[in-house]
């Protein structure tokens, strides 16, 4: 039998289970994700930095890990809590088990947990800090949580952004006439780059700290602001950059990128009680009335009542009415709170990259 381990939450609730992955202790904001497939993508999604993730689907690891479906270069979650992980996965692309992958990345996992009870707890109490540990007693763990910095006070961008700027390798189809796109990497998922490259773009990925001069100096035809972790209110140094960029070039913002566009033009953001994480959220395009099923992973949102600076709300969440998209009335700027790149999740929103590139072309 595996070693016992626990997940202790800051409100004192403790979930017992068994350890898998790497032994040790991990702190993080505990969040649940309702996507039923795509745990490899989930684990490597930089927006999960600083979070202990709980997939609500109980059987995780069934098809193993292939490291082809990764969305960044490492496991980004700080801990992974599941009901059951699959000891003998089955898939022809699988190269290791979920356990081996977490162990290799020094990330602890907890299994044997009533993840539905945990999800219901987070849903009613809101997301909160927790510690996943195979080393501490519940009391020690609760004490340690109190010493941790609050999730909302932490800037995770430096953990996930590119160390230095680079050209995306996968763009061999692009020729000299190709559109040049700069992605500002605040925790970019690979699939954003893959899909843009597939559209024939030449991509340059800039670290989150890159200033407007650098970015504009790359002579881009358009700029994509990537998703990323944490509270956008802490990121004024990027918001300032965005404030310059939106007036110069066509810009598309995704998730955190969307929040920063809003903030750059005067809107405010707030924290959702338990966020939107999963692959089944309905979004309504207000201009057409059409519903799109989207991948989402965010804990903060734009406050609709504060949207200003020429922006208007273009999309809303059909479940709770929150802002899901912004569009500028005059500038070639739009943004979405959800993930047009899916991965994991529906491919229904990939059309937005085409929309963006059309906008770029028109502006060229």
């Amino acid at each position, binding site marked *: 039998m595996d070693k016992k381990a626990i997940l202790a939450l800051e409100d004192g609730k403790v979930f017992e289970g068994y350890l898998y992955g790497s032994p040790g202790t991990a702190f993080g904001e505990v969040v649940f994700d309702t996507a039923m497939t795509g745990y490899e993508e989930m684990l490597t999604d930089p927006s999960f930095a600083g979070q202990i993730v709980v997939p609500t*689907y109980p059987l995780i690891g069934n098809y193993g890990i292939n490291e082809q479906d990764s969305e960044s270069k490492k496991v980004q979650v700080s801990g992974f809590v599941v009901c059951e992980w699959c000891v003998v996965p089955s898939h022809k692309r699988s190269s290791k088990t979920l356990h081996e992958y977490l162990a290799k990345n020094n990330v602890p996992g907890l299994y044997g947990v009533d993840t539905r009870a945990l999800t219901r707890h987070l849903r009613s109490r809101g997301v909160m800090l927790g510690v996943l540990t195979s080393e501490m007693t519940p009391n020690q763990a609760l004490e340690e949580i109190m010493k941790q910095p609050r999730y909302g006070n932490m800037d995770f961008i430096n953990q996930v952004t590119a160390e230095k700027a680079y050209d995306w390798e996968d763009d061999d189809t692009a020729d000299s006439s190709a559109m040049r796109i700069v992605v500002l990497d605040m925790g970019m998922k690979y699939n954003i780059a893959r899909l843009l490259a597939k559209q024939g773009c030449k991509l340059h990925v800039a670290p989150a700290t890159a200033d407007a001069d650098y970015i504009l100096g790359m002579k881009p035809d358009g700029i994509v602001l990537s998703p990323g972790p944490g509270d956008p209110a802490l990121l004024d140094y990027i918001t300032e950059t965005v404030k310059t960029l939106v007036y110069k070039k066509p810009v598309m913002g995704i998730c955190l990128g969307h929040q920063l566009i809003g903030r750059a033009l005067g809107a405010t953001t707030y924290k959702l009680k338990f966020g939107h994480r*999963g692959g*089944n959220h309905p979004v309504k395009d207000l201009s057409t009335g059409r519903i799109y099923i989207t991948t989402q992973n965010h804990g903060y949102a734009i406050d609709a009542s504060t949207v200003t600076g020429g922006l208007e709300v273009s999309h809303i969440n059909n*479940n709770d009415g929150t802002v899901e998209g912004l569009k500028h009335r005059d500038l070639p700027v739009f943004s979405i709170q959800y993930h047009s790149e899916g991965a994991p*999740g529906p491919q229904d929103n990939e059309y937005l990259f085409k929309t963006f590139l059309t906008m770029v072309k028109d502006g060229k």
Partner: protein
Amino acid sequence: MATKVSKVLVIGSGPIVIGQAAEFDYAGAQACKSLREEGITTVLVNSNPATIMTDEGIADVVYIEPLTVEVIERIIAAERPDGLLPTLGGQTGLNLAVELADAGILDKYNVKLLGTPLETIRKAEERSLFKQLILDIGEPLPESVTVNSVTEAKKFAGKMGLPLIVRPSFTLGGTGGGIARTTGELEQFVSSGLAASMTRQVLVEQCVLGWKEIEYEVMRDAADNCITICNMENMDPMGVHTGDSIVVAPSQTLTDKEYQMLRTASLKIIRALGIEGGCNVQFALSPSAVVAEKWAPDQLDKTPTPQYYIVEVNPRVSRSSALASKATGYPIARVAAKIAIGKRLDEIPNRVTGKTMAAFEPALDYCVVKIPRWPFDKFASGDRTLGSQMKATGEVMSIDRSFEAALQKAVRSLEFGKRSLLWEDRSWKKDGDINSFPLHPNDLRLWALMAALRRGITPVQLAQHTGIDPWFLYKLNNIYQMEGRLLSEPMNPDLMRQAKRLGFADVQIATLADSLPEQVRSIRKNWNIRSVYKMVDTCAAEFDAETPYFYSTYEQENEAFPIESAKAVVIGSGPIRIGQGIEFDYCSVHSAWALQKAGMKSIMINSNPETVSTDFDTSDRLYFEALDEESVRDILENEGLPSPGLPAPPSIVQFGGQTAINLSEPLAHHGLPIIGSSNETIDIAEDRHRFEDFLDNLGVPQPPGAGVTSLKEAINVATFLGYPVLVRPSYVLGGRAMEIVQNEEQLIRYMNQALDMDRQHPILVDKYFEGKECEVDVVCDNKEALIPGIMEHIERAGVHSGDSIAVYPALGLTAHEVNTIVDYATRIGIALHVKGLMNIQFVVMRDQPLGSSSIYVLEVNPRSSRTVPFISKVTGVPLVQIATNVMLGKSLKQQGYKAGLCSEQNIVGIKAPVFSMSKLVGVDTYLGPEMKSTGEVMGIDTTYEAALVKALMAAGLMLPDKGTLLLSIADHDKAESLPIIRDFYAREYKFYATEGTAAMIQQAGMKVNRISKKLSEGRPNIIDLIQEGQVSGVINTMTGERSPLRDGFYIRRAAVEKRIPCFTSLDTARVAVRALAKGSKFYNVKPMSQYVVREK
């Protein structure tokens, strides 16, 4: 949508047959309710009386009439609906819509086809059009060719090689198709497929055996919003019809890349087809490496987006939609109906959460397993091999947080006695190698896989041998390893908890750990290891949902707190099987509703995903669970209130067929309250000896008989009673059951076989009275009995009552006979202390001079019966509601009912059985004491003849006005058959007949073509005549011997495969000729409210 509709005609799916079962009652009932919510007037037509949808209160106007173009035109002319919704009535509904459109009827009456455009139905169903459409949108299809003849099929086989798959157009459940591995099979499948197809076309297709089979349920609204409800993965790889596959939801072995690839393809297809509503898409997906090595060596590449093919598209609500609805909580039919009248997904509320809209995709936080229920326990001689033609009559579903537990609970739900996964066939060798187990697709494969694992055969070996993905086999291996631990390790709380989490029942744990189930139960409760209940909420707990829909698991948190008001539990009837069909679900649903009407909360327990009873809003709370002692006790305890005296709510066991009634003993034993007839009452009726004594004391006669344990004894008893006698084992084993034996020779043969099988339990030998059979359903309140009507069977006793044509009222009984039946029924009910329903079968013997006939009681069932929906409908007496009220303590008098027989309605109602024999190769179709039918239809009209014509039409037993019959009559039936043959002759029928029969016909002065009797004696023989379409019907009575090798068997099978009526009882043939040439003016087409006067 251009025009708003205000009155919609909904077409039901007709009788339950294999491939088209209770799921369409569920879909239709949901749709009608959904449309009425929108202020639409609904008109419903279905020929099946055993459905909730045909009840008062579901649709505004209900027609129970045959589903033919002619009848529906008359309904359209009378009702003038402006819309027709055919997508909820299965293939039957869809085919009728096409026929109505083709006949110009929809245009003539300006009826708009809702849901799926006509063009789409054609495109999805006609193979050549479908192929073009899929190729046009760039989606991959297996190589295939549409053929109209066997020759063309063979040509394709020459190019592609075998195996090939044969699929007829416009059929349900793959009727007439199959996987052809040899040229002989190819010929057979193509010709039967051509016969089955409405368009005389079949598709011959490349066979991707061993590939994964994946399904998606998708929906689209008129604004082009598209969503997927659910995907499902078949444990059985390609090669087994999805209706015959073990299916899990959601998919388990697909990466997100694969999941999204197929999801996107599904949405592309529903858009291309322009469906407004639901649609089901089936895919073949490149298999795992282990399987590919052996089954598809070209599929070993490791691309993120592997190869797939689209195998099938159903442009309508289907069996899979019902499964997906129950698996996710998302009411597909309800939403599809609203979409059909122009609503958008984002405008339709999600009733499950009560907060969100229908425009989202359900997220599951559990694993769902469906296992089909096959009829081979009834049809021991049937071919158990599974292929592209569906054979299951029903299915079970179970939900849990692990696959192993969901699978084991589903096995428990199958109700094969106490057969858990531990079961092994006695013929399986203890040291067998992989080839010694039945691992090819068949109904026992799951158990064979477990047996093989126990013999040390590895999951990988099994994966290569069967094509099943190793993931499933490693999960089975987990179960096997737990078996080993339970056998060898001392029990402790950790082990117990782990075993429960893998779905081991107390009975299994007891067997393995060498203790008693009751001990296991009490130990685990001491250790506080008890089931908790989680909610099916469509959203993986993201939103606080309102659905009262629960499943059990062994985890920490329980979400189902006991309901705190007056309540009762209705125990459902489990999977649909021959002998226990949709009728029992009908009764369960009405009982739940009656409880609600009486101000109580109703709690439903059932395991069947196809039915109305497991719809989340049928009862106040639904437990989707196995119907065995352990799970029912767990639920009852969970519903117990801590206040003293209420350890558990009362259970109602009368409506869920034998499944529920069998639970009365264990519930009573453990002091759990049952309302209605007591366990004592049930025991007297079910225990043969006690029942004999009971009837003797009451002075009610029953056929004489005795139990015997030797051949000599049997011969003595039979000689004493006089032949024919009815013989049956007192304990039924492996499908051997009742037979009527005519002489000593047959008795010896039967006894030798029966004693061979089982020497421990006696064989029952009863006098067989070949008289008129009647039955009644009775409600008793312990003081009085209410009999809504007497049903008279057209076939004499000896044909199972479920396979007989039943007529209400009993037109052929004298007043004295009626009085005797009412007297017996009343006395039995009161003396047995029946509280609620019972069904009694009688045989009326008239060998005495008229007026002095004797009536014997054949059987008393202290529960609701198969005929309850029919008799409730034709008499207008809501039997289940009355019975439920009686159980709650309200007497018949208090309910305003007079004791005795209700006054007759001024109509005739005829219930006719429907069989699914074309799906079950190797099964003999003759009518006998063992039930074979899967469903029923009803003909109702003001005269007997008109009702008869409609019943036969609806059952597919109507002969053409003029035609040719093939006759082969047993010697002992010859004299009786002559007047029937004369009647046919008078209708200008032509005859072919076998030697003896032909001689008789000739002697009687009629023209007949004699044919060589023996199949071995040259061609053309009888079978050729049938296959070539030269005869329009067959009358063939049994010689008594029922070996499948005799000519009669082949004649009957050939008729079934050619889909022509085959009468094996002269009684049925007699009414069939009576119904001839009546013409359509002859019968009425009227709503039920105009036939039946409801009084109270």
